[in-house]
């Protein structure tokens, strides 16, 4: 379990140039992740001034991109806001659902985010983009398809491990309505996958053998990490738009077909009663198939991404097949 380390002293004065002042300044959190790095690359190409931060390490991205290792809950974090005038904050940093206990995740994800939002309000940041997740809707047999953004969030009813994910989303909504000057966009993407992605689904698709719940084969949605980065940059390009947005393609594939396309062997696992597969997953300690996500491999959670697509003229460029091809080739390369 990684521990949040002491904040490093921040001295950004030297990198703040006249040119930088003219460009829109964007703070990107979670810079060590592949999604953040893809986003930062795109923002740099579009002439944004980017500052990258992460709680894990200072990431080397480019000479013109200041990068810091920070702890949101330490006072030194505010120095970054004092020394840069941010026009936008893109909050992608998150402690994964598989890391640490609930108290640690609550501190990092909820209290840390609240500190970040407070600074955004204090320093009058124009817009904040928050990465939430489709997990917040919860996986239930009774879910209708094409869940829209107004659907109640049920994930915390179903799994205690997802409470901080729902709390983060709720916190973002509170700030969105309470501080209208900070234009908040809450993005709830479907499964993000592709090269370098180390979330639960990324790890699952990288494996050769995974569990399949006996008699269940839910349809799922996937978004290529590059498309998600494109979506974030598009959202950043419309600073006055705010709201909650699902981000998902208009395409679906059932779990077993996904496994087949990714060259993965699905091993049947007992599926009823509901508590049994969760108990087995907990006992087995599978990293890629954790007990609290078992229902997401049992019941479909299909979100409607049309609001985002319309608001930001977004359409994913990579097909599902392209995503699965990556995982198929990854396994072939391992054999070679």
């Amino acid at each position, binding site marked *: 379990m990684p521990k949040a380390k002491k904040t490093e002293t921040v001295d950004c004065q030297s990198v703040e140039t006249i040119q930088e002042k003219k460009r829109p300044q964007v703070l990107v959190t979670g810079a060590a992740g592949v999604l953040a790095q893809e986003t930062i690359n795109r923002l740099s190409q579009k002439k944004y001034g980017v500052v990258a931060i992460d709680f894990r390490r200072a990431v080397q991205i480019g000479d013109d991109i200041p990068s810091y290792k920070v702890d949101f809950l330490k006072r030194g974090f505010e120095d970054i806001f004092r020394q840069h005038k941010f026009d936008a904050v893109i909050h992608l940093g998150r402690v994964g659902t598989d890391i640490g206990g609930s108290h640690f995740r609550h501190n990092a994800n909820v209290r840390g985010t609240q500190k970040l939002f407070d600074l955004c309000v204090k320093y009058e940041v124009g817009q904040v983009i928050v990465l939430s997740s489709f997990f917040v809707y919860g996986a239930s047999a009774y879910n*209708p398809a094409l869940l829209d953004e107004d659907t109640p969030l049920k994930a915390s009813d179903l799994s205690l491990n997802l409470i901080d994910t729902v709390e983060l989303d709720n916190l973002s909504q509170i700030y969105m309505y309470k501080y209208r000057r900070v234009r908040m966009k809450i993005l709830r993407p479907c499964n993000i996958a592709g090269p370098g992605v180390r979330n639960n689904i990324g790890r699952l698709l990288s494996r050769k053998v995974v569990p399949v719940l006996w008699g269940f084969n839910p349809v799922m949605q996937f978004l290529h990490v590059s498309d998600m980065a494109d979506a974030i940059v598009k959202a950043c390009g419309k600073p006055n738009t705010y709201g909650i947005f699902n981000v998902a393609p208009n395409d679906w594939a059932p779990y077993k077909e996904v496994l087949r396309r990714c060259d993965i062997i699905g091993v049947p696992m007992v599926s009823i009663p509901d508590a049994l597969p969760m108990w087995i997953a907990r006992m087995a300690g599978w990293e890629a198939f954790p007990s609290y996500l078992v229902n997401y491999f049992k019941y479909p959670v299909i979100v409607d991404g049309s609001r985002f697509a319309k608001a930001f003229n977004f359409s994913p460029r990579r097909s599902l097949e392209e995503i699965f091809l990556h995982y198929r080739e990854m396994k072939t390369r391992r054999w070679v």
Partner: protein
Amino acid sequence: MSLASTVLKKAFVSKDVKEAHNRITKEVGSFGYDAWGYSKDGAEIGLGVFKKLYDHYFRVEAEGLENIPAKGRVLIIANHSGQLPLDGALIAIAVATNPHGPRAPRIMIERFFPTVPFVGNLLNMGGAVIGDPVNCIRMLRRDECVVVFPEGIRGSGKLFKKRYKLQRFGFGFMHIAMETDTPIVPVGVVGCEETMPSLANVKPLAKMLGLPYVPVTIPVPLPSKVYLRFGKPLDFSGVVKTEKQVIENVEAVKDAIRGLIDEGLSQKQGWFH
């Protein structure tokens, strides 16, 4: 396509079924699925399997198929009976092979089905969807053909002594029809009551198993001849002003279904014919 799909298609999908299925225009994603789990291949196999039962076991006679619009949103409202949702499957086959314009029928099913291994997935692949008003509205807005049994389990689980007596209808379908300006095609189903006559419902066992009902009946459906009567489309479009108006509209649909059931009963000659 998986090996199992290929084998099943060879075994059950005739040339006629394939042609009828190919005539259905239905938007699906790159893997042949839609957001509700409908599978183009799965629906074709389901159609192949049930078409054989439709033609040879239940010897279905469908009349009034020309009343189903060949395109655009439509709600098909029918009486429910027979313990198993065979009436839904038979209406689905009639709609999917309609010579006047086949449609992919979306049958609203009990909320309990998705929790049952295999059953939920198979039903979804064939086009069935959990009976949630949100699903119904979204599908109608996508110009789908949705089949609803407003009696729900009150109809399918009723005892044989109550056969052909319409049970209480839910009002949700009428609200949706009015909200989405959707025409209603009433259907009278005759013959399914005789497929699995139920003498009693073992309620304590049903409660224990988490099932809607456990009928005292035969284990296999009987080969009763089934008559499907599709009525003229009914238009109830407009804003709901009072609940009384909704109730009156529901009664109008029930009356239409009663009339269609009576027509079917007049043709039925005995238990199996």
